[in-house]
């Protein structure tokens, strides 16, 4: 089957998906066509991506079990627009990227496989410009782009054990039950271990480098992430609101040093770029 045909079938599927019941036209069983097209569509997206998304939903639901999204539609919309604009500069622009501010004073941000990115209002409170937000979201987007958490979780639990058979949480009706629930809890358990222990330092440094590159590609002042790290560096390491972030990441001062080594000279060659402070303040500090 060639690619054009695959795409055509996918389009047919999309068009027909809108109809509740399928008529039988000219002896052609449209339900069958749709089923075939659906299978083809999955093949195009790739089973790996579907599995990644399913795991990501399980991890995201777990993090959301720890902290609810902030009930402020304007701020959530703002963070999704900035986040998606940065994610569009990545090598995975077509992932279903979702961003959310978590209603928690803890200073932290998280990414899950498949494109969920969370930032706490505690971290948002430390920022003064959109360029800083773009840099921090860029760091999380980079974790997704490089599949840092996905690989770490698979490594820990074994390729077969995890992910395969995990159903998309959002595609089912009603609460997960039986085997589904077991799988969800299994992924959640592995996620809790990873997100409280942290990734390898090398992954964090890589996410800093790529995150700053993505924010820069998006047109922002390239020093946004560096500014955030500088602020984190000045905060008291004893604060309970910072305990998990500091436990799971290299010291901010070391991250600044690495980022300077990786990108300092390249940033020097760039002209002045907007930090979009006014829009950030107007939206987030209203």
């Amino acid at each position: 089957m060639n690619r054009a045909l695959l795409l055509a079938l996918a389009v047919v599927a999309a068009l027909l998906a809108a109809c509740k019941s399928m008529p039988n036209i000219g002896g052609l069983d449209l339900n069958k066509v749709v089923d075939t097209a659906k299978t083809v569509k999955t093949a195009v997206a790739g089973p790996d991506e579907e599995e990644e998304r399913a795991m990501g939903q399980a991890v995201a639901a777990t993090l959301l079990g720890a902290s609810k999204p902030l009930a402020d539609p304007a701020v959530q919309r703002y963070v999704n627009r900035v986040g998606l604009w940065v994610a569009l500069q990545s090598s995975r622009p077509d992932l279903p990227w979702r961003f959310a501010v978590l209603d928690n004073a803890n200073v932290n941000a998280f990414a899950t496989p498949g494109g969920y990115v969370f930032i706490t209002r505690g971290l948002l409170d430390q920022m003064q410009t959109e360029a800083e937000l773009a840099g921090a979201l860029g760091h999380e987007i980079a974790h997704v782009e490089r599949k840092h958490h996905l690989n770490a979780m698979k490594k820990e639990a074994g390729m077969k054990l995890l992910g395969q058979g995990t159903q998309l949480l959002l595609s089912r009706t009603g609460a997960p039950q039986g085997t589904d629930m077991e799988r969800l809890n299994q992924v959640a358990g592995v996620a809790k271990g990873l997100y409280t222990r942290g990734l390898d330092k090398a992954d964090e440094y890589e996410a800093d480098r790529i995150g700053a590159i993505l924010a820069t590609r998006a047109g922002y002042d390239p020093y946004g992430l560096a500014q955030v790290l500088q602020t984190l560096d000045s905060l008291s390491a004893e604060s309970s609101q910072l305990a998990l972030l500091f436990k799971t990441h290299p010291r901010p001062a070391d991250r600044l040093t690495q980022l300077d080594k990786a990108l300092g000279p390249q940033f020097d060659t760039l002209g002045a770029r907007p930090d979009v402070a006014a829009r950030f303040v107007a939206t987030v500090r209203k």
Partner: protein
Amino acid sequence: MRNALLLLALLALPVSAAQMGTVARSATLHASPLGDSKTLKVLPPGASVEVMKRVGGWYQVKADGTAGWVRMWLLRFTGAAGSGGTSALSVLKTGRSSSTYGTATTGVRGLSEEELKNAKPDPAALQLVENLAVAPADARGFAKQAELKASPKFMQEKP
């Protein structure tokens, strides 16, 4: 070059109040925010400076009465001038956290290590997050509003 400097000046970020900092390593105090500008003095590691503003990758600082520029990467904030070591950013850092959005976190939810370990998956909250999605065209339009121009080739890695 003049125009570039002018642009930089327009984009300068004022650093609120007088913030104090130190240099992490030996740092050259430059006459202007340019790597090849005149060296005013060399600051030893840990030297205390008063931070005035940031312009691109540079902070304008005062060191022992001499005003000049040091690279952003070398600076570490320590606190506000004359405040006895209290963080200058303390308004942002501590004052806002629980008051900005009204309520502090309550109940069993929380993002401490212990709380995260006890978290129960919440599919309903996930659905809320799913509904926050914006379209790529929306994000592009929003970027354009702020006059953000993408430079997709910056540090483009080879496949």
